[in-house]
């Protein structure tokens, strides 16, 4: 017997979700080999309208965010506000192992498509709900997004400068965290199903997904009674400096690491006498008198380029890091040699790089593919009747 060449070969997912969290969850399932049937409303997943678009000309088949999140899926269109659409969705669910949805809690129950409505007919189905705040609790009916998850998770309060408003992390991280937790939850439910035959409801909250990334914020209160506050996004754990500084041609992350001070950093910035400077010798002094430390560091960095600083630091095993942007990510020699970006051919757009290979499996490599045109697979609906 030939072994399947993907990890989730033979698993069928029906995906009613829109936006980022649900679709990125099902994209990971698709990249792992599951057959994902994306059920879109007649006017499409709303990310088809969010762009970016080539030449800034809106076109639901050319939205960059949609293409990024929906590779390898099939697309069917159904209007679940109509009885016929709901019947068709039910028929699809009868063929599915997994259902993923991101509607406001209670909305699918109104349409008799809630977990309890379908569990009796499809007891083996893994039913994953991805919502901003989860299926119950006082905020369950509240509106949410990644920014709201940043705010309520406490992460925003500790991000940014002390004299400015709290700052959100770019790129909608609450959505991506929700996606990963929905993916892990769904996989755990598949494992449970493969052992017991039983499906279940997996209730994912993007707020709790992002909140679980609480490195030590609530812990500082629960262990010390101390309420952490944003301070240049700087850590309280003993690591100063570990932040981004300007350099001659951009930015560099300066991190001393476990072994960088005092000697290696002094060598690195070509002032070996600094080995005996108290700011180099004493971590807590440097942390507290950080402005004095920066007066030593910044002028040197301003005269050197990031690649030079990065290379020399890493040669000394001092863990400096690069500050990459979309251009330098796509040009990066390291990512190129690892073939991180996959090139896809997207109909109507042409070749595009896709951030795909988030891990490498030796036996079942991830697949990377283009996103479907709206309703391209509607004939699937006939087959499921």
């Amino acid at each position: 017997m030939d072994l399947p060449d993907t990890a989730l070969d033979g698993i069928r997912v029906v995906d009613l979700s829109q936006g980022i969290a649900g679709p990125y969850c099902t994209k990971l399932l698709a990249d792992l080999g599951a057959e994902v049937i994306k059920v879109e409303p007649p006017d499409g997943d709303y990310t088809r309208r969010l762009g970016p678009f080539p030449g800034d000309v809106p076109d639901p088949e050319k939205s960059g965010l949609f293409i990024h999140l929906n590779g390898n899926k099939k697309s069917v269109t159904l209007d679940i506000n109509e009885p016929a659409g709901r019947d068709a969705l039910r028929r699809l669910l009868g063929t599915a192992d997994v259902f993923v949805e991101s509607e406001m809690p209670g909305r699918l129950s109104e349409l008799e498509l809630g977990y309890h409505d379908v569990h009796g007919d499809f007891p083996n189905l893994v039913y994953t709900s991805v919502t901003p705040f989860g299926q119950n609790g006082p905020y369950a009916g509240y509106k949410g997004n990644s920014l709201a998850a940043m705010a309520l998770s406490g992460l925003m309060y500790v991000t940014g400068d002390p004299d400015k408003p709290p700052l959100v992390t770019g790129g909608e991280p609450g959505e991506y965290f929700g996606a990963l937790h929905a993916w892990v939850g769904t996989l755990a439910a598949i494992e449970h199903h493969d052992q017991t035959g039983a499906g279940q409801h997996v209730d994912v909250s993007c707020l709790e997904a992002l909140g679980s990334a609480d490195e030590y914020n609530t812990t500082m209160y629960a262990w010390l009674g101390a309420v952490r506050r944003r301070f240049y996004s700087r850590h309280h754990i003993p690591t100063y400096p570990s932040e981004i500084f300007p350099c001659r041609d951009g930015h560099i992350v300066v991190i001393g690491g476990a072994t960088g001070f005092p000697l290696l950093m002094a060598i690195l910035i070509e002032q070996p006498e600094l080995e005996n400077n108290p700011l180099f010798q004493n971590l807590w002094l440097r942390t507290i008198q950080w402005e004095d430390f920066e007066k030593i560091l910044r002028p040197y960095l301003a005269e050197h380029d990031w690649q030079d600083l990065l290379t020399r630091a890493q040669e000394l095993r001092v863990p400096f890091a690069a500050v990459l942007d979309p251009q330098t990510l796509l040009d990066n020699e390291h990512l190129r040699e690892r073939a991180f970006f996959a090139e896809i051919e997207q109909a109507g757009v042409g070749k595009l790089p896709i951030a795909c290979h988030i891990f490498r499996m030796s036996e079942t490599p991830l697949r990377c593919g283009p996103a479907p045109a709206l309703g391209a697979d509607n004939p699937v609906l006939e087959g499921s009747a």
Partner: protein
Amino acid sequence: MADLPLSGVRVLDLAQVYAGPTATRLLADLGADVIKVEGVTRMDITRNFVMPDNDSTDDYWNKAGYFVLRNGGKRSLTVDLGEGAGGAGVGILKKLAAECDVVVESFTPHVMAKLGMDYESLKAIRPDIIMISMSGYGQNGPWRDFAGYGMGLEPASGMSSITGYPGGDPLRTGISFTDPYSGIVGAGAVLSALVYRRRTGNGQYIDLSEQEAAIPIVGYALMNYAMNGRLPERKGNRSHWYAPQGCYRCADDDDWLIITVRDDAEWQALCAAIGRPDAAAKYPDVASRFEAHDEIDAMIEAWTESRDHMTAMHELQKGGVLAAAVLTPKEELFDEHLKERGFFDMVDTRCAGPRPVPHQLGAKFSAFEMDTARPSPKLGEHNKEILQDLLGMSDEEVAALAEQKVIGDEPVTAVPAQVMRMFVQWPLTSYMNMGALRVIEPDYREQLGITVPGHEPES
């Protein structure tokens, strides 16, 4: 409730610090038997972070808050990986690997090969083994040997290029963002491999680079560059798509609220809620709202400034507006929604008494309940039971390993113990004076309703 889905799965966990331990903590919560491997000369460094009441006396390494969060429910084995006792420690690990389904490691590349524990070697010991390497930059490529710290990997993933105030430098999140993120990715990768193994009997090797794992978060900006050659500008809390969006000052000190208006209906709702129906007509579409963003922000803040952020959030949400309070970490602990969802477990940590610990997985299952409320292990706590139950060692053999310092239950540090005890205390008063803390509340235990050994309330 059914058995947990990973009951019967045993994990040899050689990872330390944050990303790897997050992955294995999730596997433990889902029922796996996770054996966390440390050494007395290389204990997990996070056993030094966040002491209860900043107290570093006694066995402080068993009390650290940072360690408790990521290591609950695991068993601790300490083995020396050096040449001691003829390399006995590595020999033990290889024998243990034969008893395990999954091996997780976070060394820099080549360390496992040097120990004779690379995937090919482990596969020879245990043919269906699943092994995952979680490193900063992956197992090949010119940066593979770079030392990778979490604080550097968020910028290296591109995320910091889209994080920051308008016109300012790139900024990091106030946590080591890529660590928890790639930890979850690692757990999912292992689960995927377990699903495949259940069907085929085959194991495999997984190479996870923390830098790469987080790059998809930059997806929109990457596409904009690929399609239009355009680099992102940092825009604080504003949105690509929606206006207004921002973080608005509320009545109390350092008190903030976020608002996003995603369509015209939400704009009408906001204007009604803040008593400015005139603005609804004045800025009827998103283009006009982008144009007048500064004025609109001032108008919103004139309303928020007279309310505390919780009142403002509830008022706006009830009016159909997407609004959320920027909670302090303390407020998060007391939040009514998270409380009702059971997001924090009161964990009996033993050495530090009961403490609230957040869940590590933001998912709830109807068919089983994850095992989330267990304490983290003391250093070397399970040496004897692991060596005896899994490797069949006798009392004498275990005692001999302790005698030879191959195993142990107290850290051996490069600096004198009293220096370490000073180092793990944080200069909280200085942090407070710098402005890096909002407040220190000595009565926090009473507020949280916890009784800690040595701190019983006076009767």
